[in-house]
C-alpha cells in the first residue's frame, strides 16, 4: 500500500452526537503517529440538533490550518451531505451512518458513498448508541491503515474516569475496524493508503484557549475571573479545572464588570490576575480597563473575538474587534495588544502578557478569535519546569516589613522610565492609595495641573522600554516577492499553508504578533526596498488592520482581502486568487 503523507478527514452530525470528541480523538491519534495536525470545529449556538462538524487535517510536512477538499467525510445523517458538496470530489469517500444510500437523490455528488450503520456496530457491542462516534474512528483507522493500538489507547485515555465506558468503546472501535476490514476484503472499499507513522510523537495537541491557559499558568497567574461567553469560555473551563493542580483561584463572576474588577482587586493585593471575554462582555469591562490604566494595576485581558456586532454569530470567528480593542477605554493610557497566531504563539505570548503587565503596571490585552481559540493544533512541547520572578514590586512582593521608614514610600513616584515599584497590602511602612482619580505620588486624588501632566507623562514614559520587549513582526517567504500578504492574529495559520504551495513561490508574508504599540520601525524595515503589491488579509469588513498600518506607518498603497461571514480564511481560496486574481464571493477585495 502507498504511504499517505497527508489526509483530510471530517465528521458531521447533529449537536449532541459526539462530533467534537470524535474529531479530537482522531486528531490525537494522528498526532501520536508523529504528524502535524489541525482540527477545526464548526457548530451552531445551541445544545441539541443543528449541524456540527469537526475536521482534521494532518500532514507530515506541517498542518497549520483546515483544508477544504476531503479524503473522508462521515455523516451521521444523509441530508448533511448537501452541506458538504463543495468539499467533495471524485477522490473523496463518504460514509453515511445508515443501512443504505440512494445515490440518485444526489446527482451533484461525484464521490463514492457507502452506507455503514455505525450506530448498529456500537449497539451490537452492548455500548451506548452514541458510541457510533467511536465506531467512526475504528472505521477511519482501518481505511487509512492507522495503528489500531494507538487509536485504542487514545480512546481508553479519553474515558479514563469511566472504566466500563472505556472497555465498551474499545470493543466498538475494534468491531468497526474489523467490519471495515471485511468491506475492504470484499472489494467494497478501495485502498486509501497507509497514513504515515513516524514513530516520533513529541508534540502537544492543544487549542488556542488551552495554550493561553498553559502560558498563564507557566507565568504564575494566580487569579482568573470571568463570565461565560463564547469563545472565551474555553479558557475559563481550562483554568477552573486546574485549580486542583496549581495555586490559582478561578472565580465565575456575576457579570463581566465584576470579573474585571475582581481581577483588579486581586492584582492590587499582589497576585497575578487576568480576566477574559468576547467583544460583548469586554465592552462591559471597558471603564475598568481605563482604571487599570490610570491606577497602574497590572492586568491581562483575553478578548476572544467572534463575529459581531452585538450578540452577532456567537460560535463563528472574526477579527472585527481590532479598532474596539485599540480604542477601548476613556482617556489616554498605555496598553499592549498582543495578537498571537499559532497555538504555540498563544502559549508564548500569554506568558509574556502576564510578565509585561506586572513589569510595566498596565493592561495587556490578548486579542484572539474563535477560529484558533477553539481549534486544535500541534505545537512542540514547551519547557515543563517554568521559572518566575516578580517585577517592579517593593521587596519583590514579599509581605512583612518594607525596610522603609514611616512615610517614605511613594506608590506613584515619578521616575524616568515611568515605572515605580508598588507595595501590596501587608507590607509594613508602605501604605499607598491605588486611585481611579488622577493622583499625586502617594496616591491622593489631585486636580492640580502640574501634577496631572506629570502623572500622565510618567505613565506614557513606559513606552520606550516596553517597546524593546514586544514580539517583532514575522517575515516569511520570498526575499524578493511580487506580493506581500500582511496579517495579524490567527490568519498566519492559513497563510503559512498557502506558502507551502509552489504557486506561492513569489509571495511573502508579514505576521504581526503585536499590533499595539505598533512596531512601526521594524515593519518599515521589513518592507524597505520591496517592490511588491501589498495585501492586508483580515477578518473584518472595513479593513481595520489596514487602517492601523496607515495610521502608524508611511504606507498608503494597501489592498485588502476581507472576510466577515464568520468563517475562517481557506488557503485554497487564496491560492486561487494567486493563480487567477479571483476571490470567491464570500470575500471582499478592495
Amino acid at each position, binding site marked *: 500500500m502507498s504511504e499517505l503523507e497527508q489526509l483530510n478527514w471530517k465528521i458531521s452530525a447533529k449537536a449532541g452526537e459526539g462530533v467534537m470528541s470524535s474529531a479530537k480523538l482522531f486528531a490525537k491519534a494522528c498526532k501520536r503517529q508523529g504528524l502535524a495536525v489541525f482540527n477545526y470545529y464548526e457548530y451552531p449556538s445551541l445544545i441539541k440538533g443543528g449541524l456540527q462538524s469537526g475536521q482534521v487535517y494532518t500532514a507530515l510536512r506541517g498542518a497549520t490550518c483546515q483544508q477544504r477538499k476531503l479524503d473522508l467525510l462521515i455523516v451521521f445523517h444523509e441530508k448533511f451531505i448537501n452541506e458538504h458538496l463543495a468539499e467533495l470530489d471524485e477522490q473523496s469517500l463518504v460514509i453515511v451512518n445508515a443501512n443504505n444510500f440512494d445515490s440518485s437523490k444526489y446527482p451533484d455528488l461525484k464521490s463514492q458513498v457507502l452506507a455503514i450503520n455505525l450506530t448498529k456496530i456500537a449497539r451490537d457491542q452492548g455500548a451506548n448508541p452514541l458510541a457510533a462516534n467511536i465506531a467512526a474512528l475504528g472505521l477511519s483507522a482501518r481505511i487509512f491503515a492507522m495503528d489500531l493500538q494507538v487509536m485504542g489507547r487514545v480512546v481508553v485515555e479519553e474515558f479514563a474516569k469511566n472504566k466500563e465506558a472505556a472497555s465498551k468503546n474499545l470493543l466498538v472501535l475494534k468491531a468497526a475496524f474489523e467490519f471495515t476490514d471485511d468491506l475492504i476484503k470484499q472489494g467494497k472499499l478501495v485502498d486509501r493508503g497507509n497514513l504515515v507513522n513516524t514513530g516520533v510523537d513529541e508534540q*502537544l495537541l*492543544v487549542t488556542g484557549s*488551552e495554550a493561553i*491557559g*498553559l502560558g498563564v*499558568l*507557566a*507565568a*504564575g497567574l*494566580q*487569579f482568573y*475571573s470571568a463570565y461565560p461567553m463564547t469563545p472565551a469560555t474555553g479558557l475559563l473551563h481550562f483554568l477552573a479545572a486546574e*485549580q*486542583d*493542580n*496549581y495555586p490559582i*483561584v478561578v*472565580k465565575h*463572576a*456575576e457579570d463581566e*464588570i*465584576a470579573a474585571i*474588577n*475582581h*481581577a*483588579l*482587586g*486581586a*492584582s*492590587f*493585593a*499582589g*497576585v497575578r490576575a487576568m480576566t477574559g471575554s468576547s467583544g460583548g462582555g469586554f465592552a462591559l469591562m471597558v471603564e475598568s480597563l481605563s*482604571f487599570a490604566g490610570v491606577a497602574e494595576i497590572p492586568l491581562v485581558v483575553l478578548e476572544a473575538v467572534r463575529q459581531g456586532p452585538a450578540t452577532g454569530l456567537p460560535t463563528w470567528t472574526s477579527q472585527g474587534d481590532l479598532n474596539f480593542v485599540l480604542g477601548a477605554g476613556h482617556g489616554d493610557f498605555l496598553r499592549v495588544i498582543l495578537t498571537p497566531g499559532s497555538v504555540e504563539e498563544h502559549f508564548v505570548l500569554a506568558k509574556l502578557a502576564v510578565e509585561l503587565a506586572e513589569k510595566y503596571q498596565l493592561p495587556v490585552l490578548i486579542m484572539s478569535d474563535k477560529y484558533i481559540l477553539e481549534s486544535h493544533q500541534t505545537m512542540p*512541547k*514547551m519547557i*515543563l*519546569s*517554568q*521559572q*518566575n520572578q*516578580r517585577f517592579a514590586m517593593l521587596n519583590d*512582593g514579599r*509581605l512583612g*516589613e518594607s525596610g522603609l521608614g*514611616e512615610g517614605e514610600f511613594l506608590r506613584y513616584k515619578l521616575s524616568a522610565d515611568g515605572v515605580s515599584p508598588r507595595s*501590596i*497590602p*501587608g*507590607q*509594613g*511602612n508602605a*501604605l*499607598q*492609595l*491605588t486611585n*481611579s482619580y488622577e493622583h499625586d505620588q502617594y*496616591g*491622593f*486624588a489631585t486636580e492640580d495641573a502640574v501634577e496631572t501632566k506629570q502623572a500622565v507623562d510618567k505613565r506614557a514614559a513606559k513606552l520606550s522600554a516596553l517597546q524593546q520587549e514586544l514580539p517583532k513582526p514575522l517575515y516569511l517567504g520570498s526575499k524578493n516577492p511580487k506580493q506581500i500578504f500582511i496579517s495579524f492574529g490567527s490568519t498566519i495559520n492559513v497563510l503559512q499553508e498557502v506558502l507551502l504551495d509552489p504557486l506561492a513561490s513569489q509571495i511573502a508574508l508579514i505576521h504581526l504578533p503585536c499590533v499595539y504599540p505598533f512596531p512601526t520601525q521594524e515593519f518599515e524595515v521589513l518592507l524597505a526596498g520591496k517592490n511588491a503589491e501589498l495585501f492586508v488579509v483580515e477578518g473584518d469588513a472595513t479593513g481595520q488592520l489596514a487602517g492601523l498600518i496607515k495610521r502608524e506607518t508611511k504606507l498608503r498603497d494597501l489592498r485588502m482581502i476581507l472576510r466577515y461571514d464568520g468563517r475562517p480564511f481557506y488557503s485554497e481560496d487564496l491560492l486561487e486568487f494567486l493563480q487567477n486574481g479571483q476571490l470567491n464571493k464570500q470575500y471582499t477585495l478592495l
Partner: protein
Amino acid sequence: MNDITLANLLSPVQPTWCPGCGNFSILTALKQALVELNLKMDEVVIVFGIGCSGNTADFIKCYGFHALHGRGLANAVGIKLANHRQKVIMIGGDGDLYGEGLNHLVAACRGNHDITTLVFNNHRYSLTTGQTSPTSAKGTVAKSTPQGLIEDPIGALSIAISNGAGFVARAYAGKLKQMVELIKAGIQYDGFSLIDVQQPCPTFNKEQDYAWYQQNVFDLPAEYDPSNQGQALVELLDKNKLSLGVLYRNDQRLAYHQEVATLREKTLIEQFPQTVDLNKAIKEFV
C-alpha cells in the same frame, strides 16, 4: 509593623465635606473602631466607592483602593481572595452600593465574602449636586425628578438578608458609640457584613435633617433576636421604620474564602509559584 492609632490614621488631606455632614462622625467612628480592635496599619485594606463617602479615601491613611463608581465591592472580593488575612472594608454611598453596584452587593451577600461594607446612606447623590438616590422616599423632588420621584425606595437590607449576607445592621451618624460597636462587630464577623449608616446631608437633603432623624430612628428592643431571619425581614418590611442595631446575624455560615480549597492553608499571595511544573497541565494534550 505599626499599630493603628488615631495619629497613624491621620491623613495630611483635610476633609472637603460640608459643615454638618454625617460623614465626619462616620469617619470618626471607623477610626475609633479600628483603634479599639488593636489591628496593625498593614492589616487593613479599605476600598472606596465614588461619591462624598468615597472621598474618605483621601482623609484616612491606610492601604486604600479608590475604585470606580459602583464597582468597589467587586474589587474587594478580589482583594480578599488574594490575601484573606487582610481585613477588607468597603466604604460607599447609597447610590454607589444600592444603585450602580447593586449586582455586586447581591453577589457579595450570596458568596458571604468576608468584607465589611459601610453604606453612607444620605438618600441623595450629593457629589453630583443632590439628585434622588435608590433610598430616596417616593415623591422626593430633586433636580433630576422635578415632578417627584416615582419609584419606591429600595429594600437594600432585605435584599442582603434574603441573599445570604451573614451580618446586617443599621446605624445612625448621630449615635457615635453605637456606630463604633457595630463597625467593630462587623469587622470581627467572618463573612459579609453590611452596615447601613443613616446620615443627614445638610446641603441636599433638607427633609431628613438631624431633627428628623432624632424623631425617626430608634434602637431595636432588647428582646430582638438577630438570629431570626424571618423576624429580621418582617422588621424591614416597613421602610419608614429606621430601627438601629444588628438586624440579622448568622453564625453558621462559612465565609467564601473558607470554602476555597486553594486557600485552606495559605493565602494566595503566599503561594506565588516561582517554579511551575507543567506536567499535570499538559497531561491531556500529549
